[in-house]
């Protein structure tokens, strides 16, 4: 069976889309993309139009250029993050029989301004650079423990053994969820990832499962606060009203889906690059102070999230006619490889002057967890440099990937001399 057989069927092109803007690309299953994602993205950057329409996955726009992504992320009146219209959501909720589980809404990521800030502002302090810095030592201890557990073996499957458990444990610890339920959460994460549906309604049961897994802890912290995020969230006000159990479920689901597979895959892309570039490892071992800069350039070179938007009204955007209810992907990985913005964009260049990437997006939805993510990424690179000798890819077992809204690493076999 050829790989192309797995690509989703093409839909007919709407009349307002000119032929010149059609480019056939399946953002979940394109074979070359899944084989080596960022190589394929470089190829798209060179050969596809800066904004194009693909007939795959129901048909949607792809915003490629840095300027298109930068401008669309700010223009929330044209590019909405609300996929289930508010009226439809209200109708769905009204129809729920009493006692049925709440439909968790990942706020603020799926809410447009001005409502957006009601849900975002209360979280801001919890995730500020200052609050996050206080966690650095415990994140360091955790990363050290994970790396030391494989050190003497001379090899590991980095994703399962380090990249995945690390953010899950940080998350459980920060939220105050029981650590002995780690395996359960890891299972929910992999379930969540295994079926990358782009249908917002199909997501609802999964979101309910995540919310249900946290409910006991929500109640326990409400009655008996501790020093963790769940207890802090009980103390905040949303739009002048005290938090309800539904608000807690919304936030829990949001932090779960935004903070776990993102960090894990960011680490995966970065460590793969390090494994292929022993000279960079040598440079960082000699000068660990360069790790934060190296982290920024890894984020730029391997930007890996693709936030979706709904075109909210008929518009002409950067010369392209788009219609209300069409979907547009902010293809941030391409934006950060745009040669108009970054000279020799395919080069990993630690001394590049402009490393101002939008891997965390820009504008109102700019990643709330970016400070935490940066600390997790920097810490794992520091610990790997400090604890392991030069590591490389296992030539017998090359890395494997998956693509979608998160472009991620499935397996990453590393070897080193012991």
């Amino acid at each position, binding site marked *: 069976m050829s790989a192309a057989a797995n690509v989703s069927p093409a839909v007919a092109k709407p009349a307002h889309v000119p032929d010149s803007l059609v480019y056939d690309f399946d953002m979940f299953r394109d074979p070359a993309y899944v084989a080596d994602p960022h190589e394929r993205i470089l190829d798209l950057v060179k050969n596809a139009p800066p904004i194009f329409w693909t007939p795959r996955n129901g048909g949607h726009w792809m915003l490629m250029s840095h300027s298109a992504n930068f401008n669309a992320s700010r223009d929330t009146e044209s590019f909405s993050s609300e996929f289930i219209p508010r009226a439809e959501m209200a109708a769905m909720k009204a129809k729920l029989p009493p006692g049925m589980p709440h439909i968790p809404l990942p706020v603020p990521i799926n809410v447009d301004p001005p409502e957006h800030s009601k849900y975002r*502002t209360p979280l*801001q*302090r919890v*995730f*500020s*650079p*200052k609050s996050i810095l206080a966690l650095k030592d415990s994140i360091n201890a955790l990363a050290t423990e994970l790396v030391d557990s494989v050190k003497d073996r001379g090899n590991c499957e980095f994703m399962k053994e380090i990249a995945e458990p690390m953010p899950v444990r940080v998350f459980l610890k920060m939220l105050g969820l029981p650590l002995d339920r780690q395996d359960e959460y890891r299972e929910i994460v992999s379930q969540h990832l295994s079926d990358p549906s782009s249908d917002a309604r199909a997501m609802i049961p999964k979101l309910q499962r995540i919310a249900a897994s946290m409910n006991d802890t929500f109640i326990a912290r409400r009655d008996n606060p501790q020093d963790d995020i769940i207890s802090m969230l009980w103390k905040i006000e949303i739009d002048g009203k005290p938090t309800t159990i539904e608000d807690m479920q919304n936030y829990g689901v949001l932090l779960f889906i935004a903070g776990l597979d993102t960090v894990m895959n960011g680490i995966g892309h970065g460590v793969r690059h390090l494994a292929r570039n022993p000279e960079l490892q040598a440079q960082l071992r000699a000068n660990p102070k360069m790790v*934060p800069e190296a982290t920024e350039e890894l984020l730029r070179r391997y930007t890996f999230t693709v936030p979706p938007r709904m075109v909210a009204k008929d518009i002409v955007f950067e010369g392209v006619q788009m219609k209300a209810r069409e979907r547009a992907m902010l293809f941030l990985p391409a934006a950060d490889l745009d040669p108009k913005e970054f000279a020799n964009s395919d080069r990993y260049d630690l001394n590049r*002057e*402009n490393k*101002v*990437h*939008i891997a*965390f997006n*820009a*504008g*109102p939805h*700019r990643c709330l967890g*970016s*400070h935490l993510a940066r600390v997790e990424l920097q810490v794992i690179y520091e610990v790997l440099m400090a604890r392991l000798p030069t590591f490389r890819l296992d030539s017998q077992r090359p890395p494997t990937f998956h693509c979608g809204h998160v472009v991620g690493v499935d397996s990453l076999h590393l070897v080193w001399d012991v």
Partner: protein
Amino acid sequence: MKILINKAACAGNARCAAVSEELFPLDDDGYIAVTEVDVPPGKEELARRGARACPERIIIIEEDK
């Protein structure tokens, strides 16, 4: 030299403060705390670097005339 900041558009990236916490102080929520800073002598290059680091492009340097 002066730093001028369009504070209302700050999204809390905190990249300026990663260059210099002294020139670019943040509030407790992680947003920029000031709209205008007089750059002390000797800190000009740091100010320029901090301005360039802003992903939102809302920090402007006013060079001395």
